[in-house]
């Protein structure tokens, strides 16, 4: 029963990981840009939620829409002003560009807040729901529900709106999309904005669960990579599945072995998947 409860906690955290990874997957699936600043953008959102909480006493869950919108604008602006110029450049130049952005974000946070870990104090932080012998931490339930709502909204957007369909057309056939008169650069910017909005929301939700400090950003970037590669780069259900898998595997290995060993587990999982099924669990071969 203890194991089951640990798995539940892992699953609920994993849903937030899934939303974070979804952003990376959407950006890559459409623009073929690998966002090496993904974790950094999320930590930026976490600090934004932290500051709002400290200054105005607003719960990160309530600040979420605002921060999500702000991250959308940031992502949109970055793609429009900078990254769009690198679409046709070699892989390593794109990588360097995003690495530079990542370093700048982390260093700016370090200058602004210092290296200490910060967290928000919530009065419901230790409450939990009980269902028979199963325990559900209240914060984790809120975070997971928020993540699932975010993922569903994104799915609905791509499935039903004209804009979403246009973006999918871009992803399927870049030249074809240009031929039929779609403004690909603008659509790319919107896509990057949406990917950033995902981490904006995920950051607010994750702040309920963990402390934030500037240096963890690159860990989250790597975690997002592990998840999307597990699930399949470009596959939306894959990102969510990968998030849940990593959440559970982290929780279990942290409990059974030692917490500091949990990332080794995720990396081993990544290595295994890359070697045996490089397109990921739910991905299609390009």
């Amino acid at each position: 029963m203890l194991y089951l409860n640990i798995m539940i906690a892992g699953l609920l955290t994993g849903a937030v990981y899934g939303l974070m990874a979804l952003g990376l997957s959407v950006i890559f699936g459409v623009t073929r840009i690998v966002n090496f600043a993904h974790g950094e953008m999320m930590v930026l959102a976490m600090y934004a939620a932290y500051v709002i909480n400290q200054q105005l006493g607003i719960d990160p869950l309530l600040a979420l829409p605002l921060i999500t919108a702000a991250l959308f604008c940031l992502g949109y602006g970055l793609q429009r002003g900078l990254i769009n110029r690198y679409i046709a450049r070699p892989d390593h130049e794109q990588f360097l560009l995003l690495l530079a952005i990542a370093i700048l974000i982390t260093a700016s946070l370090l200058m602004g807040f210092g290296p200490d870990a910060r967290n928000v104090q919530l009065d419901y932080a230790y409450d939990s729901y009980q269902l028979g012998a199963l325990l559900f931490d209240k914060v984790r339930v809120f975070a997971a529900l928020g993540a699932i709502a975010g993922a569903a909204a994104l799915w609905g957007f791509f499935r039903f709106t004209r804009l979403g369909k246009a973006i999918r057309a871009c992803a399927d056939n870049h030249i074809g999309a240009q031929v039929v008169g779609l403004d690909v650069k603008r659509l790319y910017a919107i896509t990057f904005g949406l990917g950033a909005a995902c981490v904006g929301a995920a950051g607010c939700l994750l702040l309920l669960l963990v402390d934030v400090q500037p240096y963890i950003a690159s860990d989250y970037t790597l975690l997002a990579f592990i998840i999307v590669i597990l699930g399949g780069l470009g596959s939306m259900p894959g990102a969510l599945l990968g998030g849940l898998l990593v959440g559970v595997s982290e929780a279990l290995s942290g409990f059974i072995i030692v917490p500091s060993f949990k990332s080794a587990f995720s990396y081993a999982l990544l290595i295994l998947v890359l070697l045996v099924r490089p397109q990921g669990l739910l991905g299609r071969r390009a």
Partner: protein
Amino acid sequence: MSGRARDSAGLGVTPRAAVALAIFVLLMAVAPFFVSNYVLSVLVVVLFAAYFGQAWNLLMGIAGQLSLGHALYVGLGAYASAVLFVRFDLPPWLGMLVGMALAALVGSLIAALSFRFSVTGVYFALLTIAFAEFTRVLFDHFGWVGATSGLFLPVANLAHDDLLFLRGSTAMFYYCLLVLTLGALALSRYLLHRRIGYYWQAIREDQDAAQALGIDVFRYKVAAMALSAAMTALGGAFVAFYNNNLYPDTVFAVGQSIEIITAPIIGGLGTLFGPILGAFVLTTLGEAMTSLSGIFGIDGLKQWFYGAVLLAIVALQPAGLWPWLRARLGLDETRR
């Protein structure tokens, strides 16, 4: 091929470039007699960056394979030589050979696994990070080599430098690294104009075309990885003996891998002198930023500066500084 016509020494180097190189080597050789201890220690850091940059540049700049996990080989070289010294009193030169062999083995294994399963490009880069991080966490829990609390090398207060056991002054390490760096430069220069160098460049430019021409792409890519890994491990041994301490979280860190690749990129990927120039520019400016952030008491200024320099290079001079400087100095590499 105008360079070949003016080639007097028969080494494929124009007289002008040969003179420039000679002046550079001479200046570097006499530097320890004229500079302060602090400047010398900064120059050691420059040479570390230049050497690691050259090792990585062979793989990425010449063979076109992007590894983001070279910290793995630094760590293997460092730990192999340090453990053999601390536990068995073996001289580091023996440990270096062990470390190089180990790194070459691990490097070819990673390369063979990924290229066999056609994991290339971005996926290959991520796989190299994954292996490096996996090893870092492994060493974090490896009690025999000190785990997270680190491995320490006994410091002996010697009147003179002990080259056999690499115990001695900053100047000794400076000359060791200068020899390594110039050796790596010569090796890169040599390989670039051998069959294997042309194969690597063919693979870098167009792998499918290289394959179609009958080049054993798999074999040469694995060879590039093995050589680059072994060279990196050799430098790693000096990292261990220069710092006298080893922590998995610094030597295997992603940050270490990033620092390794920054200098050659700033200097110019695939160029011979780029990694050295990049190391000078990056380290000296980085050092200035460190002292500035000390004066103003701001954390993160150095990192911010790294990011800004990277951004500027990618935006303004993606080919790196060396091709630009080379044209200004009127030097010409014959491969152009």
